[in-house]
């Protein structure tokens, strides 16, 4: 029998190892797997590469993961924000390697990894400093640059509904990076607001088929990073339970 549900956040992230590349879903406040990220801090794997559209806010979630010192490198499209002080300080202090990738290229590189594509050509970055050193192709009179797939060891994903096969739906625009990140990691770990019986999600409504998912943990009332930041929460990490 297939049962991808696990009982605890701790168990869910226990597979993460030192040196892993970790995809983290979310855009702004929507779709961040904050509980999984906090569990990863507690788990303590070090020397991580993390991939997210941004670089964290306040001192919670991804920002807290950076602050834990367990991240060596971050790949993102837009690390700056009004509350990205953790990233800003670490980057300026040279304690964090940064790879800036245009948002669409980032998404397509993740999708390519999941779909067995060994590179693709995009017009994005042509004429810009970010195209330097990239292989070119002219097709149909237009110039393109070669981009590599972005494979990961682990993906941490926030979803709305899940079932024991790992089928997922997402809430509103919280879908963002979730479906593609699920496909691109060796182990995909999901926190879902609700785990429903198999068959409750109609086959037409499944957004991420369970084939891309390895572990699902139910987090019925996920925290709001925005509210935590407003309330001055500083996640320092707990101990392994």
């Amino acid at each position, binding site marked *: 029998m297939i049962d991808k549900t696990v009982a605890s956040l701790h168990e869910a992230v226990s597979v993460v190892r030192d040196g892993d590349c970790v995809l983290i879903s979310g855009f702004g406040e929507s779709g961040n797997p904050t509980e999984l990220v906090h569990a990863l801090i507690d788990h303590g794997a070090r020397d991580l590469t993390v991939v997210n559209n941004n670089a964290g806010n306040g001192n919670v979630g991804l920002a807290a993961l950076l602050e834990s010192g367990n991240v060596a490198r971050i790949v993102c499209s837009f690390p700056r924000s009004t509350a990205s002080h953790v990233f800003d300080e670490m980057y300026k202090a040279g304690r964090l390697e940064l790879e*800036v990738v*245009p948002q669409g290229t980032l998404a397509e590189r993740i*999708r390519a990894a999941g779909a067995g594509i060994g590179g693709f050509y995009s017009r994005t970055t042509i004429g810009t400093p970010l195209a330097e050193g990239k292989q070119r192709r002219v097709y149909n009179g237009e110039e393109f640059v070669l981009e590599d797939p972005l494979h990961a060891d682990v993906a941490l994903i926030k979803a709305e509904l899940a079932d024991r096969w790992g089928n997922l739906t997402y809430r509103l625009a919280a879908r963002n990076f979730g479906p593609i990140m699920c496909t691109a990691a060796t182990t995909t770990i999901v926190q879902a607001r609700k785990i429903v019986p198999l068959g409750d999600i109609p086959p037409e409504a499944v957004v991420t088929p369970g084939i891309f998912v390895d572990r699902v943990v139910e987090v019925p009332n996920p925290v709001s990073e925005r509210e935590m930041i407003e309330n001055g929460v500083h996640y320092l990490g707990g101990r392994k339970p």
Partner: protein
Amino acid sequence: MTDKLTRRQVAWRLAQDIQDGMYVNLGIGMPELVANYIPGDREIVFHSENGILGMGPEPRDNEADYDLINAGKKPVTMLPGGSFFHHADSFGMVRGGHIDICVLGAFQVSSAGDLANWSTGGGGVPAVGGAMDLAVGARRVFVMTDHNTKTGEAKLVRECSYPLTGLGVVSTVYTDLAVVDVTDRGLTVREKVDGLSFDELQSRTDAELLGRETCGVLNSPEVG
């Protein structure tokens, strides 16, 4: 000193050039104002690169849902007919040429339509977001900007000195002084504010301006 347009007036003027039925992406910040001034008889579908088509107006305060935000990470609403999709599909729309108009801000626009809007090239944290994708992907890129920087420097330049966002991508620039089209021959003034001479406009502009004989008056009503 000639009256410049307010930012809201620039947004109003730009909005008049968005035709009924178009798919439009509004960049973060000043471009977001454009949504307020679409003529009422036009149905526009707004795209947000985080994965939304059919965005409606801001929600009332107590109805904000942070799973429904735009690219600027502000709460929005959905119109009937809207849809959600993932990031790869969303940027497929962008790169694939399905977005009719993208409105972006700019540090500099060159005579050839080169756009620089993501970095002033100094130190600091590099951050690009979706600007480069939108710049190459949208069928037309409208730039909305002050004509000059706060310190008086020209933003319409012969060559961009800042790192580029995209090469020859800009169609039209809407400033507080003029509407300027990027044409094969260079920057052509379509409209300028009343009372501003062509020479005065040129003096505020680094790039050579064309259209001295043909340009009209840039009218924009007082808008709130």
